């Protein structure tokens, strides 16, 4: 412990520490700064401090507090603003550095550092509405409830909340379930706030360097004029497609897309980038590898391979066997999903995809089911006697209610596809229509959407992937030919084939066999 790293590191592009210390968010910010991208100044309190905090909270925070204050001074110098007072007050965000957000974690606290005097100063700089909205946002956040008036105490308690939440039982259970490393802890990133809510020339959004659902090589994302980042991810506000930013502020849009392309090249992977536009100026807040559908995982790996960003072996590493197995099962293909008319959006409460005629009354639903129709029951709310409608329905949609509502509980118990909390008026809107309920995405779309599966034989993407695999896999899989037959693509069967000296086999799923062979030979 004598050779401790500094507890607080400025993320100015020179913080040459790995993500294990800076946290993934901190590492991403430092990387963006290093590459000259517009990122608000930030510092991080390292994951090492986060780990010490879990053992000795009070002593740890006392010990590093002077370093945190130094960090705040650096943000003040970089922004020409002052934390905790006017005339030009500095507000900050405090974020967890964890690579994935997990239940029970305090991920983000925005707009920290506002009290009565600061609100007045913000109003003088901008507008009364902006100052009020900004303060309201902080007060509504988990760290803002009953927050002290002293901005430094606010900062201290937010940092403590971020560190402590790593150790919460829910977060620990999530890591255990998903096989995530439970050692260590999270870093905390403190960053100067920029404001998407300051005027009409501002807003917040998320942009993907390519479409993460279909895998198409096109920009994809969401834009919320006048909003802040938490609005965009919360799903409670209607956001616009990213093309709305292009229409509104073409120069900013071009700069954003250029940054997305550049980050994709630097990371050799498709990026998901959170950004804010403050009065016509673009700011990037964080970047990370985009979450993607199985379809997109395959298509994006092939595109990056074409673009020369990744080699054969890395291309195959980007596609997990689970992706291929999911693609071989019938499912709603993202391009079909996105092409259909979106009628309602709610919370996914029972998984699966089903199509049927929408009925809003239980008796009518039962009669229709008796006639042999596929029925979707759509209710404003559910009462106990709706159970008979739910029994005959293939899918259930409700206007009100959350993921723990009675309707959600009963739907799951019956194994019904369910989307709940779609909002007022949805029953009237859907009544009598043929609809497809997507209980995985929480959507209701118009018409009958077919479920289709990919196949190793006939889907071009999988054939191309198999061609690449035959160049690098220690065991080459073939659909036919004069080779020994591999009965299963399990790791054990593949290992046995390789141990017995085989290099070419015939298999029902040559691609899965080769992915297994590569995994086995790499020892992962």
């Amino acid at each position: 412990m004598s050779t401790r790293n500094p507890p607080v590191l400025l993320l100015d592009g020179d913080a040459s520490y790995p993500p294990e210390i800076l946290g993934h968010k901190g590492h991403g910010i430092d990387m963006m700064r290093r590459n000259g991208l517009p990122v608000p100044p930030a510092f991080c309190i390292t994951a090492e401090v986060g780990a010490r905090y879990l053992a000795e909270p009070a002593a740890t925070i006392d010990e590093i507090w002077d370093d945190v204050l130094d960090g705040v001074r650096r943000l003040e110098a970089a922004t020409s603003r002052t934390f905790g007072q006017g005339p030009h007050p500095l507000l900050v965000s405090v974020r967890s550095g964890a690579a994935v957000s997990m239940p029970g974690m305090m991920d983000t606290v925005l707009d920290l550092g506002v009290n009565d005097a600061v609100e007045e100063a913000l109003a003088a700089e901008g507008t009364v509405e902006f100052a009020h909205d900004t303060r309201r946002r902080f007060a509504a956040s988990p760290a803002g409830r009953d927050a002290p008036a002293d901005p430094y105490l606010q900062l201290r308690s937010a940092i403590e909340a971020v560190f402590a939440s790593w150790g919460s039982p829910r977060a620990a259970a999530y890591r255990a379930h998903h096989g995530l490393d439970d050692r260590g802890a999270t870093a905390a990133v403190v960053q100067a706030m920029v404001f998407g809510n300051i005027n009409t020339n501002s807003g917040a959004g998320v942009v993907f360097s390519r479409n993460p659902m279909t895998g198409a090589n096109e920009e994809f994302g969401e834009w919320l004029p006048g909003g802040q980042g938490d609005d965009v991810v919360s799903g409670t506000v209607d956001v616009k497609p990213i093309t709305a930013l292009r229409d509104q502020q073409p120069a900013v849009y071009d700069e954003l897309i250029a940054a997305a392309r550049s980050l994709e090249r630097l990371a050799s992977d498709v990026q998901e980038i959170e950004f804010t536009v403050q009065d016509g100026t673009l700011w990037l807040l964080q970047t990370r590898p985009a979450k993607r559908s199985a379809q997109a995982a395959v298509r994006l790996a092939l595109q990056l391979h074409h673009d020369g960003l990744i080699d054969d072996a890395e291309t195959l590493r980007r596609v997990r066997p689970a992706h291929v197995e999911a693609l071989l099962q019938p499912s709603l293909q993202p391009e079909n999903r996105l092409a259909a008319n979106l009628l309602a959006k709610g919370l996914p409460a029972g998984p699966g995809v089903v199509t049927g005629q929408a009925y809003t009354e239980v008796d009518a639903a039962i009669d229709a089911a008796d006639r042999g129709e596929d029925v979707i029951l759509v209710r404003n709310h559910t009462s106990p006697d709706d159970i008979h409608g739910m029994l005959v329905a293939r899918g259930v949609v409700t206007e009100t209610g959350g993921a723990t509502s009675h309707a959600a509980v009963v739907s799951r118990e019956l194994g019904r596809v369910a989307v709940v909390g779609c909002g007022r008026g949805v029953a009237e809107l859907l009544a009598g229509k043929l609809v497809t309920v997507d209980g995985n995405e929480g959507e209701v779309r118009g018409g009958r959407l077919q479920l289709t599966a990919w196949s190793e034989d006939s889907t071009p993407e999988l054939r191309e992937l198999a061609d690449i695999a035959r160049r690098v896999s220690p065991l080459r899989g073939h659909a036919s030919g004069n080779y020994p037959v591999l009965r299963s693509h399990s790791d054990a069967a593949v290992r046995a084939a390789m141990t017995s000296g085989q290099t070419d086999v015939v298999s029902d799923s040559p691609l899965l066999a080769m992915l297994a062979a590569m995994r086995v030979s790499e020892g992962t």
Partner: protein
Amino acid sequence: MSELAVLHAVRLKGRVSLADLAATLGEDADDVAGVVDRLTESGLLIDGKALRVSAEGRVRLDALLAAERKHIDTAALAAAYAEFRAVNADFKALVTDWQLKDGQPNTHDETAYDAAILARLDDVHQRVAPIVSAAAAQVPRLSRYFAKLQAALDNVHRGDAAWLSRPIIDSYHTVWFELHEELIVAADLTRESEAKSGDAQ
């Protein structure tokens, strides 16, 4: 047993067999059959594949419930319902945790996880007991709900977890959902208005 009790039980079940109706009322099947025959003859119940309430029956039921409410101390009942709301949120969360683990269907292969949830059910049961008592002091027939909750809980404790949340049978969730409906009606609220305020979800 009263006409009200039978009509309301059929209404809450939606469609129900005579045997299940007698079981949920906790009454002798022959006695229930007598009342059901009278209600069917007067057109208030429909006896098809299962019993259900007719449109006239609903009108009659609403009138009977309104008459019942005249004898209720509404403040006491509103207080009981307010307490129920808090326990209700905890109960539905625990059922959801029973069904889903980290967003995936609970495969019930982790004994400690399941045991922790069942311990929460015991806590919920203790908290709801005085609430049902308070409500039953206003509407005596509601005391039956605690007996049914207790019976479902006993079955869960005996190791038959279906009695936690399976629909149709008088599982803990089925009884709870009906009790919730009874309290909304007794407090002279509607589920629609409650749903709007987020409490009857």
